[in-house]
């Protein structure tokens, strides 16, 4: 099933349609930290590029020795924590770091699911498959996440955590076929900006919402023909108030 893309960036909501901010470069907001993963991506990419098996074809050019610009991936949030919904005087969201409380409050070992939280983080929704909190979080070190091998990774390298289970997407990402990009296709001429996993996929509730598409074209030749009328009878037409007709396995509403 198609999943509309959700963006983590402030102020962008699915109902507005997406402008591609999710793929854009640094927002300019001071609260994002620029993280250079050139070595990570470049090293893995170089290792994987030739293992894909594409043989050199006649007419191929030689690999250029020109220096390459960096591929930048920035974290959507400067610090690990949750947003309070408030903003400081510069307009940046105020984030409460995990350690703010967890330096004093230990984790309740009886809680495994988000629904069981009764004192703090109440109402947290985790719909990420069958994952529990401790599938990824690593109390008492809340600034780290644990991999299946037992090794931990800091927040800055959390893409490795995602890539454990979503290895196909991770491989696609390293080869530029997942997650989009902005900047230059030719890295000998300019840099490139890539998304972080959690720019588009919310870790706790990754399910995408529907979006409103950009306006439709209205030029000659695109008027509805009678064939289209018959084919899409009653389905594609806008209902009253612009609501989409109810579809889906249970005929339920769209979120």
């Amino acid at each position, binding site marked *: *099933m*198609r*999943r*509309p*893309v959700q963006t983590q960036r402030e102020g962008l909501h699915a109902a507005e*349609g*997406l*402008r*591609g901010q999710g*793929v*854009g470069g640094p927002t300019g907001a001071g609260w994002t930290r620029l993280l250079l993963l050139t070595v990570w991506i470049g090293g893995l990419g170089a290792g994987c*590029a*030739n293992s*894909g*098996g*594409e*043989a*050199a*074809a006649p007419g*191929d*050019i030689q*690999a250029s020795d020109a220096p390459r610009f960096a591929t930048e991936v920035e974290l959507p949030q400067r610090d690990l924590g949750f947003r309070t919904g408030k903003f400081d005087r510069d307009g940046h969201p105020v984030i409460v770091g995990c350690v703010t409380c967890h330096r004093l409050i230990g984790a309740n070992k009886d809680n495994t699911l988000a629904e069981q939280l009764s004192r703090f983080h109440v109402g947290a929704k985790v719909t990420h498959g069958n994952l529990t909190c401790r599938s990824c979080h690593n109390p008492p070190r809340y600034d780290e996440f644990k991999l299946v091998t037992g090794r931990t990774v800091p927040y800055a390298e959390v893409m490795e955590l995602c890539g454990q289970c979503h290895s*196909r*997407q991770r491989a696609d990402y390293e*080869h*530029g*076929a997942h*997650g*989009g*990009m*902005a900047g230059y*296709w*030719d890295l*000998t001429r*300019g840099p*490139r900006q890539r998304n972080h996993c959690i720019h*588009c996929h919310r870790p706790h509730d990754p399910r*995408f919402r*529907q*979006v*409103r*598409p*950009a*306006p*439709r*074209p*209205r*030029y*000659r030749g*695109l008027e*509805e023909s009678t*064939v*289209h009328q018959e*084919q899409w009878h009653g389905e*594609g037409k806008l209902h009253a108030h*612009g609501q*989409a007709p109810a*579809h*889906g*396995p249970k005929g339920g509403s769209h979120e």
Partner: protein
Amino acid sequence: MSERPHDDRAQTGVDPGADDPEPSGRRTFLKLAAGAAGGAALAFAGAPFARYASGLSMEDILQRHYKELTDADKQALFARIEGQTKARYGVDVKLHDPQPIPGVRYGYALNLSVCIGCRQCSEACHKENNHDRASHNSYIRVFEMEKGRMDLARARADYDHPVPMPERTYQPVQCHHCEHPPCVDVCPVKATWKEKDGIVVVDHGWCIGCRYCEAACPYHARRFNWSAPEIPAEDINPNMGYLSNRIRPQGVMEKCTFCLHRTRVGKLPACLEACPAGARVFGNLADADSEIRWVLANKRTYVLKEEHGTEPRFYYFFST
């Protein structure tokens, strides 16, 4: 019995009243009125031609084919177009003429597993390439069809509901920059051709607007400018390429150019940057290490209307 001139006319058919002192007032009036009405109708019918011609200068009419222009010719031409754009749209623009990068053959791939039909690619093209605002024109059309059918003949591009709809598939279509482009074959004036880096371009100053290429393209990727685009000055993208996103005049063809004013300096096309699903992959097919080559080697890939033998350079693939 008095002579009655009209009786003689009736019998002999000859008008003996050549020296009739009093011309027939009614007949002359009707002739003059009909003549005036006919002249007015002719002027009214010819008004569109007058409007069209008023935008043309002698240099426009005598302009030579792009391939025959010297550098000095091009500078003069671009300056003239910049001046016309300033006069008509009220904005200062810069026309560039980036040349193909040696050793590059562009390829573009699109992941149908993740396309959600949001039309952000179409919107970005609309803004980047200075399209007419009222018709919301774009070089890209996004088709919606029933899932599993991939039946473009029954798809529709004018849907207007939240996306993605369940049980629907979305497929954007734009110029595929075919290896054997039918549009190039049929152009009677050679106003369109395939460049060294694979981009099929249109010389908007040479095109005569016969629309034969539009009929020949199997993907309906080429469209005609029925009127000059109307764009507010603040929305115009001033970074223009002569062969790509200059504001096209009325009466010429246009199509996707892989944003050559961007890609020929190494940048990604506007549609790729705008895609929120990350469905698009662009690069150099001649570079074995490029992303596009990896996609073609490792993903299920297909092209539209393969049986036509056009060999498109725009590929569709799936995630798994």
